[in-house]
């Protein structure tokens, strides 16, 4: 789960880092800006769960208090990279003498934590790494030890700052990662200002698998999902929306992805990823098929199943149940192989759904059905 900037900053402050003074404003409760009694200049920053908001006009510097309300309303009316703006952070504009990049992340390749320190901040870290690799320092922190003085010293040398000045921020990032199960805690830019080092922007990603042990985070409103994905979460479906028009069901993440790829190679456009998992029973398939059938985007449904733990007769029963329950008629292409595939094919044949054993032929059929309309 990606935390909003304002949530990330509340956490950073709690863990001992310095953040600019600010207020959060909700769309449904916009105060008059004069009531906030702030000295200009300040920033208005759209709170959205995606990057690139600056370029999309989601950050406005206000130099004249008389224009503030106009700017505020215009930000609330924006859609930024697909997301509406529900909250705006109003924040004191702090002037920086120098900007840095600092983050801690789970490094899956080295199976450790990495502290990444960039002596030139502000840009996207991937961009910095590409254009100015020498400005980036990467420190590996084994999960078996704690962050230590020598780590702080490495960062301080790299930044050319006294280690007492950088220590609270490094420790804050590390402590957040460990105590909140964060996969990433990123401060960019980290600015040298009249208040010392200040986190001007921040991003925290929490490990979804660990949310169960952080009730406060679990209680936060969902974000970063499409309406479809939100509905799928309520049904406990492993689902992701894609842009196409052919609904996809597979069992197992790898097989479902391979099905998307196969469909694309045959000229079809996958509308989603839906993995019903290994060993799912007919109920789960009924639910999954009905979910896709009801979605107007989907012209054709393509179901690709290898029965290992999953039994193909259960799959077939689920499809039949969904079709008889839902009034909507849409072509369904089914490929069955493995456990009880013949029985599954017989069940589907009775309701007029033809099955394939060869996935390549099935994918071609699904693609041509979607293209034919």
């Amino acid at each position, binding site marked *: 789960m990606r935390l909003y900037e304002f949530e990330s900053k509340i956490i950073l402050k709690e863990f001992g880092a310095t953040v600019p003074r600010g207020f959060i404003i909700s769309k449904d409760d916009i105060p008059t800006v004069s009531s906030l009694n702030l000295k200009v200049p300040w920033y208005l920053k759209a709170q959205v769960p995606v990057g690139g908001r600056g370029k999309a006009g989601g950050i406005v510097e206000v130099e004249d208090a008389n224009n503030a309300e106009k700017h505020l309303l215009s930000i609330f009316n924006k859609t930024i990279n697909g997301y509406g703006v529900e909250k705006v952070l109003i924040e004191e504009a702090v002037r920086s003498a120098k900007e840095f990049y600092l983050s801690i992340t789970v490094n899956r390749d080295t199976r450790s934590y990495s502290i990444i320190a960039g002596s030139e901040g502000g840009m996207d870290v991937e961009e910095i790494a590409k254009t100015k690799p020498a400005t980036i320092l990467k420190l590996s922190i084994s999960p*078996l030890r704690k962050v230590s003085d020598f780590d702080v010293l490495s960062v301080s040398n790299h930044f050319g700052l006294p280690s007492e000045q950088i220590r609270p921020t490094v420790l804050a990032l590390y402590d957040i990662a460990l105590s909140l199960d964060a996969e990433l805690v990123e401060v960019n830019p980290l600015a040298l200002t009249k208040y010392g080092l200040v986190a001007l922007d921040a991003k925290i990603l929490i490990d979804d698998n660990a949310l169960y042990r952080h009730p406060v985070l679990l209680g936060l409103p969902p974000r970063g999902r499409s309406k479809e994905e939100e509905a799928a979460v309520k049904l406990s479906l492993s689902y*992701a929306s894609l842009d196409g028009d052919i609904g996809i069901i597979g069992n197992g*993440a*790898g097989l479902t992805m391979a099905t998307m790829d*196969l469909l694309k190679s045959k000229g079809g456009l996958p509308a989603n990823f839906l993995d019903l998992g*290994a060993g799912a029973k007919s109920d789960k398939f009924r639910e999954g098929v009905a979910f896709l059938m009801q979605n107007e985007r989907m012209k054709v449904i393509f179901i690709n199943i290898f029965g*290992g733990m999953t039994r193909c007769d259960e799959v077939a029963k689920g499809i039949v149940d969904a079709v008889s329950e839902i009034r909507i008629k849409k072509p369904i292409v089914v490929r069955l192989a493995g456990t009880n595939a013949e029985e599954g094919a017989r069940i589907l044949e009775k309701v007029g759904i033809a099955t394939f054993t060869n996935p*390549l032929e099935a994918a071609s059929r699904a693609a041509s059905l979607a293209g034919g309309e």
Partner: protein
Amino acid sequence: MFVDENTPVLVQGITGREGSFHTRLMKEYGTKILAGVTPGRGGASVEVIPVYNTVREALSDHPGIKFSVVFVPPAHCFNAVLEAIEAEIPSIVVITEGIPVKDTLWLVNYAQYKGCRIIGPNGPGLIVPGRSKIGIMPGTAFSQGRVGLVSRSGTLTYEVGNALKVKGLGVSTAVGVGGDAVVGTTMLDIARMLEADATTEVIVVLGEIGGNMEEELASAISSGTITKPTVAFIAGVTAPPGKRMGHAGAILSEGRGSAFDKLARLKAAGAHVVDTPWKIPDIVKELL
């Protein structure tokens, strides 16, 4: 061969729904399961296999245990795996999906320090067709043969095992390394074992988006560490960046780990790459 019918196995979480179900299937397949562990259920039995409260107790009665397979739910899995490491069980196969990455990070590093190997988490385990299976792979999908399979996906492994079987080809050993972002044993670790394995003649790699395990493997092919002919498929060419595709580890982030890059690296290293796993048997047939 990684394991055989004489490899002694422990099942952790043996009395749970998944644990007891797969214990039965493993036993039917011929896996030598000596003991099970569920805290608080010591003295019970599952499929005539004795259940102990702790791994230590199980090992004091069955000191030869070489593998543990873990079916314990995420919230208790850390302790279960830690217990297996402290008992110095050489190989620990973790089936559980949904373990926090912080727990896995600590466990894989500690296991390495103690000289144990974790396979998984969030994987199907391994199978040596006709001899033994440790995990949840369906035995019927594989026949004995000379193809070594290493995979990040359970169902794709079964699919390919079955597709090979249909064409009269078989598998020497199949290992799922797990779908999480951090796993204890990499694809390269398994490929090295398949390289050393006398029964394996061709290596099949089933990768997916995210991470750098496939790239690591490509480098090993280039450097001559892996010399056996290798066939590779990478799932997720159509996956958009930033979206998790089911597996916690299947996500394109920061512009790296794309299926396209992985395929290009493997191809440049000399692997035979395919755009769909269903083409693998034909390529393998030519290579054998």
